[in-house]
């Protein structure tokens, strides 16, 4: 499930902006067309197993409990990619990849958010286990990427700092 779009390239291989695509999507967004489009794919895929309790759980321990995670193993085959310092805590871009075979479920938990579970995906068989999304962070926290494969839980973590800024340099 590769949600994010990739670059366009000119013949020299230097990536350039595609103004046309941007304008088209802005237009679509302005007209409300996006809501009917395929961008809701992940949500639809997930809708069948919506577990409201997991998203409403307070604190990391409770969120893990609601997800049914007794224990997990930190794995080098799971990666969390994000900036070290957030440019805007309200929308922090995060990518998660899993190279573990038979990955069936992926989730992001923001340890210090009041409701840590931020997003979760069921991964249908044969799908590339990778996604990019934006999460909201109230303060500096570890981002925990949780992966379920072959019935076992794996994880990777990265600290993202939410700062007041303005220190110049």
């Amino acid at each position, binding site marked *: 499930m590769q949600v994010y779009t990739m670059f366009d390239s000119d013949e020299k291989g230097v990536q350039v902006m595609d103004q046309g695509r941007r304008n088209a999507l802005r237009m679509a967004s302005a007209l409300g067309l996006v809501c009917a489009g395929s961008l809701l794919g992940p949500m639809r895929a997930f809708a069948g197993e919506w577990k409201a309790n997991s998203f409403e759980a307070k604190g990391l321990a409770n969120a893990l409990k609601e997800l049914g995670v007794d224990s997990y193993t930190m794995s080098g085959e799971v990666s969390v990619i994000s900036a070290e*310092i*957030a440019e805007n805590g309200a929308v922090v871009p995060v990518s998660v990849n899993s190279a573990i075979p038979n990955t069936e479920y992926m989730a992001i938990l923001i340890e210090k958010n009041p409701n840590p579970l931020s997003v979760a995906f069921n991964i249908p068989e044969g799908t590339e286990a990778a996604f990019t999304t934006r999460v909201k962070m109230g303060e500096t926290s570890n981002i925990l990427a949780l992966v379920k494969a072959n019935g076992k839980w794996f994880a990777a973590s990265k600290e993202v700092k939410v*700062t*007041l800024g*303005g220190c110049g*340099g």
Partner: protein
Amino acid sequence: MSISRRQFIQLIGAAAASGMLLNAKGVLAAPSMDKLYDIPRFGNVHLLHFTDCHAQLRPIYFREPNVNLGVGQAIGRPPHLVGEKLLHHMDIKPGSSEAYAFSYLNFEQASNAFGKVGGFSHLATLVKHMKDSRPNALLLDGGDTWQGSATALWTNGQDMVDACLQLGVDVMTAHWEMTLGDKRVKEIVEKDFKNRVDFIAQNIKTTDFGDQVFAPYVIKEMNGVPVAIIGQAFPYTPIANPRHFVPDWTFGIQEENLQAMVDEARAKGAKVVVLLSHNGMDVDIKLASRVRGMDAILGGHTHDGMPVPVIVDNAGGKTLVTNAGSNSKFLGVLDFDVRAGAVQGFKYRLLPVFSNYLPADPEMEQLIGKLRAPFENRLNEKLAVTQGTLYRRGNFNGTFDQLIVNALMEVKGAEIAFSPGFRWGTSLLPNTEILMENLMDQTATTYSHSTLTEMTGSMIKTVMEDVADNLFNPDPYYQQGGDMVRVGGMTYAIDPNAAMGSRVQDMRLNGVPIEATKKYKVAGWAPVAEGASGEPVWDVVATWLRSKKSVPPLPLNTPRIIGMDTNPGMAL
């Protein structure tokens, strides 16, 4: 790449031998420029590098820091060495012109003996001199070039754009340039720089789709060798400076993308790959340990004039990491010997630009004169005389910031004042005039509004902890490369090794502990919020200076520094 021990000894020997020395009577026997800058060509790939000139077109004085603490793995590692510890580590003779250029030691006496440093006319002469012996050498500008002076501010960066074109800059990356706004940056890149200067940044992308805003790298053929220069803009530009100047662009270190760009450049045939970086030196050292395939990182941002590169091991080999100081005080000269498709050896020198010993380039001098002419009257207004040395650089404070916070408190009627931990700003010798130009050298930004706000004690603590973590987080990827916020009125203690939230301690106002819920009147300047307003800080300080006429040496409000007694990055 590998560097033999013999090569390394030659390298540091060269740094110590080429300069001038004061004799026992403090009299200088100066060699001619040719002898001082007689640096024979080595190899066949030549990169000339300056960075963080902060729009200083004219020669200036610049005092290097006596506090530049390293924490975590950076303790005692370059650039976190000051004074005698630095000279000893770099094998530089005390009393030499190099000791003057690279350290704060005997600043006043050495300034009188060796004179001013930098200035684009003198830098231009040195660039030409180096290019004479190094055919097809590239001139790289690490950024922070279009900001830092009155004329850069008043011409919207145009004076520096014209001067850089005249200087012959080939490739550039950026940081403070962005505070002119995204439209102005694009205008310069697309018009003035078109087909003349490659403006590159692998780590600036659009916030919506992550598309590249500028070319990530450029490959240039030099003496038969394809050389790739990859650009790395300051990763935390929208955080350390106002977001609203670049609302649609995202930055960050972007290590994974950098690796992809290195691999792509190599796949296209580049035999030398160099990162032109505005990360800051600690970030560059960590980056060099994690990304494969870079021969060198030519770095800036942290204003560290480091005469010798740090050589970093990584999975792909070794990477040189340099940092070339600030204020057009230095020119880095990196020579690579490239044979059989690979780098076989290198020589690196960071040459101080001694204005008295490098004759001004007539064409550049003429251009600077023309650029400054409309502003000379305003620049030369005499505000006051300083009795002590004025400087900014240092982790916690400098005398010029002390002057600014004192002025802010007095003029604004505040109990406490903050001045941002900027690292730019020139120095003034005792008993000299403070001209409007000198004040602008400390304050000229596009958002220098002064502010007066009520803050609770806990808010003050939060702000100071936040800034302290940007300086002292043990992981350099979480640092932003500025210095600690300068504080007037309030005293405090700081434990740089403590965790975030516990570093700032014992905050007091007139000896009385700061209360968490009590409100205090706090003056400051350079707010990052959009729509901020307030009298420009240079007007506030100029008013104060005019009323004082003469400013005595200012006692520094240095915090009590905990746990750093043996740190070689501090000499108090």
